[in-house]
């Protein structure tokens, strides 16, 4: 897994370094960004439109991976790693298993959508959200001043064990409880 991670890292960062050297950093950076963003967005679109739920799940993973790459693009290596592991791996697998368990028949139409009316309504709501958030992003005069945060894993570890140790513990309990709860709910289902 570590190997894979470093491979991707070297690929992305290597490309960037190359671009910087070539004197057209912005353009190339933009290209990479658009490529990754395209992967993320198109996969996401696929997730919500695919009729086969297994395809949806796979595309979801693709979208997650695209986003994970973007994290690395943003110098958040550790985040990227977690993204691949948790989302790309665990969550996706969990979901696929769930799909298998709850739906054992034909997979082709396993991911039905609501009717057109609903779709239009949903599109309006989603579009509205997009519009407002997009406007918010565009209307805000941020003075960008990228600070190099240094090693993301170390920085995060530091925060997690000092300043945010309490939420860290709480999150641990949260996971524990989620596990217990999931077991009970699922076990209850089995027992019935």
């Amino acid at each position, binding site marked *: 897994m570590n190997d894979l991670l470093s491979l991707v890292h070297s690929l992305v960062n290597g490309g960037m370094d190359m671009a910087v050297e070539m004197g057209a950093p912005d353009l190339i950076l933009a290209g990479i960004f658009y490529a990754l963003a395209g992967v993320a967005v198109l996969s996401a679109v696929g997730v919500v439109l695919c009729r086969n739920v297994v395809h949806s799940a796979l595309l979801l993973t693709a979208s997650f991976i695209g986003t994970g790459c973007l994290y690395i693009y943003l110098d958040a290596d550790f985040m990227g790693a977690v993204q691949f592991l948790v989302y790309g791996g665990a969550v996706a697998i969990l979901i696929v298993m769930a799909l298998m368990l709850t739906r054992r028949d034909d997979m082709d139409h396993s991911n039905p959508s609501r009717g057109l009316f609903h779709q239009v309504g949903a599109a309006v709501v989603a579009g509205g959200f997009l519009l407002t958030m997009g406007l918010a992003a565009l209307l805000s005069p941020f003075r960008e001043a990228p600070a190099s945060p240094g090693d993301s894993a170390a920085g995060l570890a530091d925060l997690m064990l*000092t300043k945010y140790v309490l939420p860290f513990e709480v999150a641990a309990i949260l996971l524990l*409880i989620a596990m217990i709860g999931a077991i009970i709910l699922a076990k209850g289902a089995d027992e019935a």
Partner: protein
Amino acid sequence: MDFMAVQTEILILLLLLSTLVTDLAMAKGASRRPVAYLTAAGLAAILAHTCGLYHEGASPVFYMGLFLADNYALFFKQLFLLGMVFTVLFSLDYVERCLPHPGEFYSLLLSALLGMCVMASANDFLTAFTGLELMTVSFYILVGFRLSSADSGEAAVKYLIVGAGSTAVMLYGISLVYGAGGSLDFAAVSRNVHLFTAVGLAGVVLVMAGFLFKLSAIPFHMWAPDVYQGAPTPVTALLAMASKAAGIAVFMRVIFTAFPYLGEFMLPLLKTIAALSMIGGNLLAIRQTDVKRMLAYSSIAQAGYMMAGIVAADYFGMKAAMFYAMLYVFANIGAFAVLSVVDAERGGTSRRHVTGLSQAAPMLAAVMTISLLSMAGIPPTAGFAGKIYIFTATVERGNLWLAVIGFVMSMISVYYYLQVTKAMYRDLEPGEETLAEPLPVPSVARAAALVSAAATLAIGICPESLAVLTNFASQTFMQ
């Protein structure tokens, strides 16, 4: 790091672990009463312990001002503990009869409690968020805990879906606030002028939406009726009193410490939402026949009242909101204690199920009536004093119209509360005679109901006793 600041949470965590262990140690199929008693005793002990934690002067802080154990937090923690203790007590029978894994049930209750306590003390978004999620996830599970009931599962799914949507929004908001405020700390955020940019303001309202979801204020209320109705009755009780109060606790802290300078921006919104909640909640409750569902709508309205206190945006308003949150706990304990018994004995909580209660169990009927009247704000129950506090504060800030809406709607609410009273007290029709037969009431539940009713009346007649506490707690923000 000052671990004294988190002693309550640590104690709760220890209790949580001991319940887990006890549960595991017990034989399969054995009654889980000991776990319940352990939980209740432990919670009572912690509650007693917290009483000694009120203090003058500076409050203990966990680390870098990120986790405050101030009187404000303490007040809310006591509120949660109180609600939890009583819920455990009155639901002993219910849990044993209707829920498949009572041991874990108590563990989950405690984890939800832990989440709430963290929320009450949290002084940064990350802590608040994790606390909130701990509570929420625990509730997802608790709502779906009644495995014998399909409605319970449906309710849990709905809660999860809408809750996840709300979590997403809140996170979005936090992200934007983080961007604009440059930090996750409430104090640091409050000082950042970028909060006044589009991203900042949008972030603020999204965060607000996330908390308002917990308060089930209109228009973020849609989940509440279904979830309240489907959830096991004790869980509904907790959703109504504790979850909501936790939302209020963190909401007020966020407003007053993270966004203290956004008053002009937020107050019109909050007023509108408060008014909408008061109107909509009460109107929607009118048609309900299921008491739990009715209480869900009523809880929307109650959230509106509390928000009316909050929008006074001053010491008096906060005090009033806290006062109201506390008395609402007692009212809920009473109502849900009765409903739990009814649910366990008669297998439902619709008006049909409470019919004839005044003859089957006169004490329960009386407690139910008193509790409902407290929610409606009819003296001599605590609700009346609470409404006076809230709307005095509201009027003082010039929001007379809000007070008009509040009072008028609370009188309309009497209508649907009285529908329940009517069902309990009316003459039985032919064919309903069995409903008059005495209902076996577990003595603990009876005691819990009585205590809550007594407290409701006591606070109503002598509000000073509680007001002292809220004064003390609300001074936090005045320092």
